[in-house]
């Protein structure tokens, strides 16, 4: 490795391909997906073809909302080593007709409740770890809106 590449500035890498972090730090990161022009089905990230109707025309990119609502959840207590637990692991429905997995904060994990169904949440991004090349790994997380 040359001196030049070693001193290269570290990057902010999204943890999943469907989280986009704009080059311009003034622009907010966002989730994106692909929409089938034939049937309207929406998918996270890039698609080769439509998984619903099989249409092979290029899908249209959609910028997904940063607000959604909790469809269902679990509270994970036993997990892989090195992770903080318990955490609220939810399925979040976005208004574009696609869902995303997310950790939800602002709820008491010790008291899961049916009142959590349908709660509005907003996405934010956070550095969760550093990868082996020294880049920041950025995840999308969700906070309950009051």
């Amino acid at each position, binding site marked *: 490795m040359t001196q030049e590449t070693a001193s290269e500035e570290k990057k902010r*890498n999204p943890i*999943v391909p469907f989280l986009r972090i704009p080059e311009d730090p003034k622009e907010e990161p966002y989730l994106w997906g692909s929409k089938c022009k034939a049937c309207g089905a929406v998918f996270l990230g890039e698609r080769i073809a439509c998984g619903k109707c099989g249409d092979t025309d290029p899908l249209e990119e959609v910028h997904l909302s940063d607000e959604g609502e909790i469809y*269902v959840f*679990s509270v994970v*207590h*036993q997990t892989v080593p090195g992770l903080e637990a318990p955490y609220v*692991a*939810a399925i979040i429905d976005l208004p574009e007709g696609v869902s995303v997995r997310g950790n939800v904060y602002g709820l008491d994990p010790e008291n899961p409740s049916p009142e959590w169904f349908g709660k509005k949440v907003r996405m934010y991004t956070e550095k969760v770890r550093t*990868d082996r090349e020294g880049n920041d790994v950025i995840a999308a997380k969700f906070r309950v809106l009051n």
Partner: protein
Amino acid sequence: MRDVAIVGAGMIKFGRYPDKDVVSLAADAAIGALKDAGISINEVEMVASGNLYQSNAMIGQRIMKEIGATGVPVVNVANACATGSTAFREAYMAVASGMYDVALAIGSEQMGKMGLLGAGGGNRDYSTEGVMGTGLMPGVFGQAGVEHMRKYGTKMEHFAKISVKNHKHGVHNPYAQYQQETPLEDVMNARMIAWPNTLYMCCPTGDGAAAAVLMSAEKAKQHTTKPIWVAASALTSDPWQERNPTMFDVNTLTRNAAKLAYDQAGIGPEELSQVELHDCFATAELIHYENLGLCGDGEAGDFIDRGDPQIGGRIPVNASGGLLSKGHPLGATGVANILEIVWHLRGQAGGRQVENSKVGLAHVIGLGSACTIHIIKK
């Protein structure tokens, strides 16, 4: 398609065998099935081997080297948790098609203390577990149960009662990894794994093997006066669903497989004597009561409250003790739950016998996705 009979059944007790290798476990089960059928390996015309973690290492052929390398066709099958039942189906189709008269299906797996499944491999720096929701099985199946809570107001106690029932059944199953009752209070107060699934609502990982000998009707008559018949064999994968794969859909493909299987067998769920279904977690069993049509939508809570799925109830479910008691060595599971039905139909199920069982259903679902349903009758 021709009628296909199950003539031989062999299985080892599920558990942990750190001193044995998986080929020898599978060989024990296969030899058991051959002896039960009253034939030798020389009469087997094709072999389907189900094993999730060793199919790329040609485990089917390695088993044959152990029990008799006769040179017949061997296929290695991997299909998530439905691996064993998909191998069974391959053997079934080989005979039903008319191509072979005698086929051997073997399911095996050695997992040891593998721990939580679903964290995913790959680059751990970019693992989303615990930072963008969960892909761990207890949480995934927790969410599936929580969806039922959302739709119908189901309570954690409903799921817990399933664990109580299955462990009660499992006490009488000598093949089960755990033969121990778990009272409701213990289930509710056990360590939480992923809400609402506590420790006793999650199946254990382990090692195991099970095998079946399948024959054409004509061949079966030469070996037994009481063949057991495969009345239906269905296999489905996920149709598109808007939340899937963000949220695995364990319901739709089960419903689709159930419809196919009931149509093939020409019966409805009300005619079943018993069911072995895929209770990898207590939450899963409850939603499958409805998916298999054992009760109406939204009625699964009442169904377990009334004791309908107990042995002696309206339609006994998981008389074996289910995966919660038996354990879930992935490739073995799908063959094992078909064999459980076979033993009940033969009246060989001992202390857990469902009286006068005439027709049973065996269901397995693998995430990602594969669902098999077999209907087995006298």
